[in-house]
């Protein structure tokens, strides 16, 4: 289940990794909010193939955009444009071709930044969406057109009425038409689905429809997929709402909460509790080396939350007086482990020592279907040493080296920490609260099992 990822460089005093060379494509419409971005490389007009190369514009972006939320959103938008630009050929297997196109882009995106797991998550989600739409279209083709209309209406009305509704519900709805989302179907699926979905998409297409109404059905498929990706984007945008709705139920009066660094989800969560007239106190550890805790403290104070900024080293000292630790995550792995900003494992250990609940809030786009192996090293990224040491001050130490030429002075500045599932008390996602041991099941709702390894095709 593990995707082998390149080992990030360790212990360097070299400048941070260079951004991948940008090779953007003019025909692929860039995400709208990137248009004004100064980081966007100039468009090149020579490329002719559309979708596959358009990803490289995002490859550059992936490195430049920070935060899994922004990355997830842009990935989804890019994939939507890939789908919309995909020329539906007359080949028998429309869905497979579409999936292949998405997968090709996805591979590049993931390769561009294997650490940013949200990219892979969204690619898998889109692949899953294509598959579901294809199955439903096939089912419709077999059962008759009336159902298609039904399901279409359902989609549209849902979309109109409650745009903020989470995609999990939508997905569940969609799935309900196909199969009940029970453990039984899951168990049935695991051995069968790789075969079924492949064959279903191919045979179903060729058998059921290819002879009759090719054009309309492919257009329908593409339209449905684009609409579903649109829903996914909406879901990513609005993931804070269902999470923060749960805040009042988890925070009591006069609660003392500790958090590390800054997470938008945490901020919205605390805001929601404050808006419901809950009064509580927050300790914000500043989160070296980015010191985003200062920003969070400022934002909380603006809303009138009692906030105390502490240094990261004081976390252990203060945690004995804290009722709950609420933190954001970079990614949630299938085993319930969390990839989080550096320092989180220390906080989690301290919380465990004092039996303080350690709560992780994360939107569903952060749920990663992979099981981590040695994530401290493999899913980590080392940033510039200049965050920690002022090169100017330490220039006199730079020229020292050992006999074999390796430098005497090394600086380690990792970005992420891995918090093992046993240290996490609770996950709050947009579908509610879950224990770490349940995460694998929750994640199975969002992804199809045969997409876990996106890169499989290229390696095969």
């Amino acid at each position, binding site marked *: 289940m593990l995707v082998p990822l390149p080992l990030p460089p360790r212990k360097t005093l070299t400048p941070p990794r260079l951004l991948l060379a940008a090779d953007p494509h003019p025909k692929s419409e860039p995400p709208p909010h990137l248009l004004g971005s100064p980081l966007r490389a100039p468009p090149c007009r020579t490329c002719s193939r559309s979708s596959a190369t358009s990803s490289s514009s995002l490859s550059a972006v992936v490195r430049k955009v920070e935060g899994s939320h922004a990355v997830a959103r842009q990935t989804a938008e890019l994939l939507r444009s890939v789908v919309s630009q995909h020329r539906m050929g007359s080949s028998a297997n429309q869905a497979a071709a579409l999936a292949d196109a998405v997968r090709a882009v996805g591979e590049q995106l993931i390769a561009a930044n294997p650490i940013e797991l949200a990219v892979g998550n969204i690619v898998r989600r889109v692949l899953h969406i294509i598959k579901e739409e294809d199955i439903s279209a096939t089912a419709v083709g077999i059962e008759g057109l009336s159902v298609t209309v039904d399901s279409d209406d359902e989609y549209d009305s849902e979309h109109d009425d409650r745009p903020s509704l989470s995609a999990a519900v939508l997905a569940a709805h969609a799935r309900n038409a196909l199969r009940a989302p029970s453990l039984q179907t899951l168990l049935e699926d695991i051995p069968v689905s790789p075969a079924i979905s492949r064959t279903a998409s191919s045979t179903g297409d060729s058998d059921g429809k290819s002879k009759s109404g090719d054009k309309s059905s492919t257009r329908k498929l593409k339209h449905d997929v684009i609409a579903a990706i649109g829903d996914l984007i909406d879901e990513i945008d609005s993931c804070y709402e269902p999470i923060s709705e749960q805040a009042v139920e988890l925070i009591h009066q006069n609660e003392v909460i500790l958090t590390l660094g800054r997470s938008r989800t945490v901020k919205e969560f605390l805001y929601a509790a404050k808006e419901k007239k809950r009064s509580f106190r927050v300790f914000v550890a500043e989160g070296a080396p980015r010191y985003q805790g200062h920003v969070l403290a400022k934002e909380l104070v603006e809303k009138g939350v009692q906030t105390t*900024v502490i240094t990261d080293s004081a976390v252990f000292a203060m945690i004995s007086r804290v009722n709950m630790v609420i933190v954001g995550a970079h990614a949630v792995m299938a085993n319930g482990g969390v990839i989080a900003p550096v320092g989180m494992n220390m906080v989690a250990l301290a919380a465990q020592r004092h039996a303080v609940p350690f709560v992780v809030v994360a939107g569903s786009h952060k749920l990663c279907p992979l099981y981590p192996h040695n994530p401290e090293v493999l899913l980590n990224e080392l940033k510039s040493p200049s965050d920690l040491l002022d090169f100017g001050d330490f220039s006199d130490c730079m020229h020292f080296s050992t006999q074999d030429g390796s430098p005497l002075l090394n600086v380690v500045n990792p970005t992420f920490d891995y918090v093992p599932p046993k240290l996490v008390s609770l996950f709050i996602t947009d579908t509610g609260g879950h224990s770490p041991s349940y995460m694998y099941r929750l994640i199975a709702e969002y992804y199809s099992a045969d997409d876990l390894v996106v890169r499989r095709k290229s390696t095969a």
Partner: protein
Amino acid sequence: MDLRRPPRSSSGGVEPKIRQVGFFTPDASAPSVLLPPAAAVPAPLAKQGAAAGSPPASDDLSPGRLSPVMIPPPRHADLLAPGSPSPAAADAVLATSAPARSSARLDVASEIADDDSWSRAPSATELEENKRGLSEIRNEGAPASIPQKQKTSKAERRAIQEAQRAAKAAAKEAGKSAGAASAAGPVTSKQAKSAKNAHKKDLPQAASTVASEKKVTERLPERERKLDAPHPRMQFDDVHKVEKAKKRAVVNQSEARNRVELFRHLPQYVHGTQLPDLESKFFQLEPMHPSVYKVGLQYLSGEVSGGNGRCIAMLLAFREAIKDYTTPPNKTLSRDLTAKVSSYVSFLIECRPLSISMGNAIRFLKNRIAKLPHTLSESEAKASLQSDIDRFINEKIILADKAIVSHAITKVRDNDVLLTYGSSSVVEMILDYAHELGRKFRVIVVDSRPKLEGQELLRRLVAKGINCTYTHVNAISYIMHEVTRVFLGASSVLSNGTVYSRVGTASVAMVAHAFGVPVLVCCEAYKFHERVQLDSICANELGDPDVILKVPGKAEDHLKNWADNANLQLLNLTYDATPHDYVSMIITDYGMLPPTSVPVIVREYRKEQLWI
């Protein structure tokens, strides 16, 4: 395993004697029961003899050393309690004193009444040597035991009593059996003799220990007892006391705004307000000696920091002050000088709260002043005090550091990866020494805001050619995978094993513990303190909150004007308390010990300190 070896080997010379006792009390538990007191007693006694200048007490007490149970004050006795050497003998004693067992004091009374010689014991009818021994015991027993005495529960007192009774019974039985086995060889006769001695002399002495304990606890003036117990610290959430203190204060300090609710009991002043005020008062502050004044300013500006550095600076300033001191007319030196030192100390406290090591040093100095013989002339007294201070610095800090280095170096092997946090002077010495010896190792320097003391350490180590890795405390989980040893410094080690040190030490120790990496805390024994602490909140020091704002290398200042918003507080803790279970070993000048043995060192050390 390593942890326990040094103390045991140091007591190796005593073991045969214990076996001798074991001959009479064939209970298996006897040697282990007797070991701790045996290990503990000879060293202080010998040192006392040498230091106090009295005729060497060890010779006089040689019969007493035969059964070392008798000598130590009762705290070791809790160790003795569970395994009373000979059940039968104990029963015999129990039979005589059974009704009185419920009350410890009655118990003593009845037991003393049991034996004629015992009742005589506290009185002056003893032999000369016993008297001397008694006075010594009283003196050494009193200060160490009194703080504890207040805390001992009834159960503990009873355990002590039982242990002593058992010991007596053993000795008695020894006497009996020796008498019975008179046909045995010269060894036995010798033993019999010594056992008789034990019967005649040690028992009185044991009784006298008990009695003197009792006497001391009962009769010790309230004032003196208070002097010995750790002072309750000033609690700054008490409005009246704070007002009072303000009136006394030399330095005008304005209290910080937006203080953290949890830390109301700690002093926190607006940083930087004292300095100009103090500077302007330089000529007005008549009673302050200039050298003390200078040290105060250095504390205030942060120029002198670190437990040892601050302590040495303070002691040297006091030395200067004592050198320039003249007793005012109509006053005695010891009283006036004590008052003087107290005023210096309160000035220094206003500059920066005392560290625990400084508190110990001050206590030592005051003790020396109080114990000055009245026969000394002023110049002699001053010279003696100055040499005392020098000796303290030398023995307790400089030599102690060397001893720690020599102990710790045995724990550095080739290809080790050593992690240290912040900047500890003694850890730096260890690393330097290991490098000089040619050991091949890497050092990981972990640092944290706001002080970033590790950077200076890093610079010095790299300049010496030691391979270093630098990181911040948040990355500790990442880096801990490769670490084989963690060396930490400490500001103090408290008697429940808690290590009180630079904030962040606890986190480092916790992560090391979680990764199964041994944590070695290096701390000189003079920094040990009998105080206990469970968290980092009840006692701590608050630093300047404004330094949290300034992030190195980041221009934007998100929290500017933070004090204007009542909802926002910045907390800059200076210390934290590491629970003892995270600490594998404490390396001190007396050797390497587990954190559970800290109270032993505290006790022994305090005794020695008084008799230095």
